[in-house]
């Protein structure tokens, strides 16, 4: 049997500890051990982006990170996006402009979109589409997703 690893990391600012086996992914642990089920599994092979989280400030697919690799890191998931009852402008614009249908892709898209706007507060439509190319959506056809992102960007710039 493989050895269990004792892992300590921060998730949305809170310290968490857990035991894991080497083959468990960060996504497995976020969902099944920490019970933060906002992060979704669409493919488990890096193709769909539903599992997107921030790992030490970097946008990554949590299905492509082993839980053991996350020792000592800081992880941000969708659960940390709103401040209490106050939704993030991205979340609000997705609701108002119908940027989601079934919602499976939405947490990953919101995390990825926030990472974009932190680097580039005024993306063009093309830039937004390329940045989000790793987030697949089988419902919306992407148009309303992109519109929601650009509207949130404008709002956040105070435009």
């Amino acid at each position, binding site marked *: *049997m*493989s*050895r269990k*690893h004792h892992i300590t990391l921060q998730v949305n600012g809170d310290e968490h500890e857990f035991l894991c*086996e*080497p*083959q*468990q*992914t960060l996504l*497995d642990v976020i969902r*099944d051990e920490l019970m933060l089920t906002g992060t979704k*599994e*669409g*493919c*488990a*092979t*890096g*193709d769909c*982006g539903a599992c*997107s989280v921030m*790992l030490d400030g*970097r*946008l*990554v*697919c949590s*299905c*492509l*990170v*082993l839980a*053991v*690799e996350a020792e000592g890191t800081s992880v941000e998931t969708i659960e940390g996006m709103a401040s209490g009852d106050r939704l993030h402008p991205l979340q609000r614009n997705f609701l108002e402009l119908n940027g989601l249908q079934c919602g499976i892709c939405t947490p990953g898209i919101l995390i*990825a979109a926030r*990472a974009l706007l932190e680097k580039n507060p005024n993306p063009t439509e093309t830039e937004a589409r*390329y*940045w989000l*190319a*790793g*987030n697949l959506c089988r419902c919306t056809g992407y148009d309303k997703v992109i519109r929601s992102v650009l509207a949130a960007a404008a709002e956040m710039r105070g435009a």
Partner: protein
Amino acid sequence: MLLQAAREKGNLAKIRRATVGGDTGQGGSMTGLRYESPPTLDAAVALLNNAKGLARVLAGGTDVIVQMETDLIEPELLVDIKKIPGLRTIVAENGGFRIGATVSGMEMVEHAALCATWPGVIDGVKLIGSIQVKGRATIAGNLCNGSPAADSVPPLAAAGAVARVIGPQGTREIAVAKIPAGPGKTHLGKGEIVESIFLPARAKHSGDAYERFTPRTEMDIAVVGVAVNLTLDTSGVVISARVVLGAVAPTILEPADCAKAIVGTRLEEAALEQLAAAASAACRPIDDKRGTREFRVTVAGVLARRVAQKAYDRARHIA
């Protein structure tokens, strides 16, 4: 392809969970997986060299974890090299850049001086998966995974990049172009680890470029990829060139006739035509649903001239 893989994976994910949950019997040797994150390269080399079963370096994991997830490999040992100090830096050296083995694609894309000096290498890096994938993926991993369609490998080879390899016998320097040995295979020996990849200094009036053809514009695997790196004299005549083709043979190809077709020219129409013909003639592609043999051969020629022109235009603008 995605759907089928996803369906197969559904089962694997279940098996993995059952195993993780303490179920016995299922999952086979996966329960025996060992993860190590040694503090030094020497320790990493020793771990790999002493491994009895299948052992893998774990860099960004964007190939290794996918291969484990889809049951392509069932390693006994993963040696994570990301905790080894000094491997995650891009350092200016002798007018060029040394890129450590654990530097991610995004870190390269964000490095302004590197992007300005080797834009063609960055063209290749930018094409590696999504922003998320590039947040983890390394060029050393892209190289060592041994895919004939790896997008950073043709431009690295055209750039004359050199890998520094640490192994049980010590350190050696080997051209990136000499590492691929066929699909999934490299010329690295047991226990050998790429420590860094060195991109040399550039002569004046040099430019490089890489493009690939894919059915989708993003998140797809190259059907053909072409990298060109060239240097001009002050009058705009090509004085040296390297042309490297990806995804059209079991390894990258560097057909001598391609470079010959453009050296001594200003990429006039005749030279470009000759280049395209040489690129097409050199291809030994597979025939599959992503592109027929005939299509790949034609596209290699079309891309070769397009990429040569792009490298040429860059060379004229980079002082």
